């Protein structure tokens, strides 16, 4: 995503990433891994709850399909990082797109940790939203 942020800008889209980690943790993360778009903090998880994002279980993370997808990511160059102490590794994420009237036009709540839409899928959803606006 961060390597293709310009494509989102070209389509007239803002991007905001939200973490449930506290602001100081997000700041440290951004010092090590700067992002071209803002990253905000939602430690109360009010946003996570509003968008219906749930926590999975260890069983959900260690399912063979999920482990296999992580192995595939590793083979493509992704390296897992050690998580900080107290990071909630069971919280699932999600990707959403809002139109100019701030109506939800795309929603993908991760069913398991590797379940995220591709960048191409997000870009296409933005194009569709713009065409319908």
């Amino acid at each position: 995503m961060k390597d293709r942020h310009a494509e989102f800008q070209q389509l007239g889209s803002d991007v905001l990433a939200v973490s449930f980690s506290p602001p100081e943790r997000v700041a440290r993360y951004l010092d090590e891994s700067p992002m071209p778009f803002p990253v905000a903090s939602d430690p109360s998880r009010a946003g996570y709850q509003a968008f219906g994002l749930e926590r999975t279980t260890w069983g959900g993370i260690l399912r063979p399909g999920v482990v296999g997808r992580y192995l595939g990511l590793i083979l493509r160059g992704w390296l897992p990082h050690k998580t900080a102490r107290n990071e909630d590794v069971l919280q699932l994420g999600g990707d959403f797109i809002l139109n100019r009237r701030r109506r939800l036009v795309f929603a993908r709540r991760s069913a398991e940790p590797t379940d995220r839409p591709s960048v191409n899928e997000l870009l296409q959803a933005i194009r569709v939203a713009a065409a319908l606006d």
Partner: protein
Amino acid sequence: MALNVGDEVGDLTFQKPDGGSIRLSDLTAPTLVLIFLRHLA
């Protein structure tokens, strides 16, 4: 009740890393991609 496609999203407020706050209304582009992360690496 979780938001569904078609629902209007309220002006949620989040905290910026520098201690300030950011509201969804601060982002004014025609579309907004909102990515809720899992844990930070």
